[in-house]
């Protein structure tokens, strides 16, 4: 199993009252609530935490992309991944992911990811996403073209990485006369491509296709939902006539390890609940602009609205498997049980969430790396 230390780099100094009053920390929370001096400290603290992940023995460290939100301060994961490329030596660096449809020109992503891959000597894992619904509001990109643009941008990027240039690319959304990438990526044929998703049949059909066999990552979902989608991926692959490797499956989940179950819950409670009930929260119209998902999926979300949009306590989250928290023994046995049910070959752990301070974050990372990680590595 590959264990990845994942970071969102939230604005931990947020005035929570302002976030709650605004109803969401996405799109329209006034940026007067961002203090650049505090931001400076946070970025450097978070980059230190990811660098420490290498020393602690994680296989990869991971960053991601979100725009105009206190939820995560990485509008460009390329910037943070670049910083990590020079400060780390062995650990893989995962961008999970770059939001393809939000860029007006996908070749910029092909170029930037190739640069990081070359600088790091082939340590990049390249993730592709569509960006979340809210980002179609912030950027104004038309969500009804999101899938089309994603697929076409993907085709252009992979061809730019793998085919000898110059060649012409003729698309519906993108047209380029001379595709001729300098630099070409370090890894052959190209960096591994991972597809983070909140769960969708269309995404799974596309990622599991034998032409691609991309690693599918289910992010922040109840364990039962993760299990359902990972099984869907396996079944889909079998439907395509091949047996998928465990390395094609991944799960991203927040984790907190404390000395005992009781102290872990006590220490994590406030921070996890702020994460779930302030940082993640947004109205339905913001989460799902028209065309972002199929109309059927949108109706399913509307049906589950009360459950999805209501507050969740730490105890409920642990019961749902939305959060893995407890003593080293508890966290080990939880993951062992989940692994037996799902056989994910990649586990992404979010060891810092919302307002979790530096000292607790470090201890969480250390306990996880020392007491849990070796046992998970021995599973498979």
């Amino acid at each position, binding site marked *: 199993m590959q264990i990845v230390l994942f970071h969102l780099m939230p604005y931990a100094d947020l005035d929570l009252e302002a976030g709650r009053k605004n109803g969401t920390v996405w*799109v329209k929370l006034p940026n007067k609530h961002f203090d650049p001096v505090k931001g400076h400290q946070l970025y450097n603290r978070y980059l230190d935490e990811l660098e420490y992940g290498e020393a602690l023995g994680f296989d990869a460290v991971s960053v991601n992309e979100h725009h105009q939100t206190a939820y995560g301060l990485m509008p460009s994961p390329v910037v943070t991944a670049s910083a990590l490329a020079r400060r780390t030596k062995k650990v893989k660096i995962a961008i999970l992911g770059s939001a393809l449809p939000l860029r007006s020109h996908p070749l910029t992503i092909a170029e930037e990811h190739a640069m990081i891959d070359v600088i790091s000597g082939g340590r990049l894992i390249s993730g592709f996403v569509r960006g979340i619904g809210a980002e*179609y*509001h912030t950027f*104004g*990109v*038309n*969500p*009804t*073209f999101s899938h089309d643009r994603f697929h076409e941008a993907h085709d252009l990027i992979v061809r730019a990485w793998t085919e000898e240039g110059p060649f012409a690319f003729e698309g519906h959304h993108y047209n380029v006369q001379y595709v001729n990438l300098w630099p070409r990526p370090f890894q052959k044929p190209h960096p591994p491509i991972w597809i983070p998703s909140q769960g969708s049949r269309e995404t799974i059909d596309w990622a599991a296709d034998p032409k691609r066999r991309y690693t599918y990552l289910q992010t922040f979902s109840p364990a039962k939902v993760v299990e359902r989608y990972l099984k869907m991926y396996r079944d889909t692959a079998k439907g395509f006539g091949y047996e998928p490797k465990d390395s094609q499956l991944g799960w991203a989940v927040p984790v907190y390890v404390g000395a005992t179950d009781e102290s872990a819950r006590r220490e994590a409670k406030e921070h996890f609940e702020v994460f779930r009930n302030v940082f993640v929260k947004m*109205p*339905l*119209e*913001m989460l799902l*602009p*028209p*065309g972002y998902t199929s*109309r059927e999926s*949108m*109706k399913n979300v*509307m049906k589950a609205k009360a459950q999805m949009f209501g507050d969740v306590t730490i105890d409920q989250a642990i019961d749902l498997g939305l959060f893995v928290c407890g003593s080293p023994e508890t966290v080990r046995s939880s993951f062992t049980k989940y692994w037996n049910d799902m056989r994910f070959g990649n586990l992404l752990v979010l060891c810092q969430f919302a307002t979790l301070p530096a000292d607790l974050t470090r201890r969480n990372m250390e306990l996880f790396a020392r007491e849990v990680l070796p046992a998970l590595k021995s599973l498979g």
Partner: protein
Amino acid sequence: MEFAESFVELNGCRTRVRRAGRGRALLFLHGANGMPAILPCLHKLAERFDVVVPEHPGYGQSGEPEWLENIHDLAYFYLDFLEKLVLQDVLLVGTSMGGWIALEIAVRSTERVKSMVVVSPAGVKAPGVFPADTFLMSPEEQARALVYDQKIAEARLAEPVTPEALDLALKNRHTTARLAWEPRFHDPHLPKWLHRIQVPVTIVWGEEDRILPVGIAPYLQKLLKNSKLEILPKCGHLPHAEMPDRFVEIVCR
């Protein structure tokens, strides 16, 4: 007056058309929320006109053709539609999104159009005037912002939402986003060519419009050389629904 329903097959799109009355042809182009039921004002107009009410491609019970990607596609579709139905000397009436479509049709050709009424039309961005962001509004906020008279909104909100109505609402919203998400509810190139519309245009606007503020109206009027402006006090974004008698009177004039 009973409206007869038919489906017109055009450019690969099965298009629902409701039609009633006799006289000069009146083509009514509905707004972003579609036209599930024929409004009272259209029944009145059918006493004077041959009223033709299509559901736009992508809306209501009409098909969702793959070619529908922007507002210009609809403009060309309706030029074909006027030809196919052999409509002449048409009174072209459009509300909100439909008003935008009417303007896009008319800059291309007024060969079959004799005059126009546009009701709080989208399509033109007036400097310094900011429309509401309907895509971030909940259904309740939207229902309230659409009308001046909140009793109308409350009656509307009290109606149960059937699964069929929800399906239609999601379909209409999807097509509206496809056509109007970015640039938001306007075509930046449209003002350059509005001078091509030489047929008389009546612009109708509710003074209390909270979706497309009335500040757009004088700007649009300046761009349309042969136009006059009717601003209705105590009226929101849907004058044809909120003040049907006044609306019918303006159209018949």
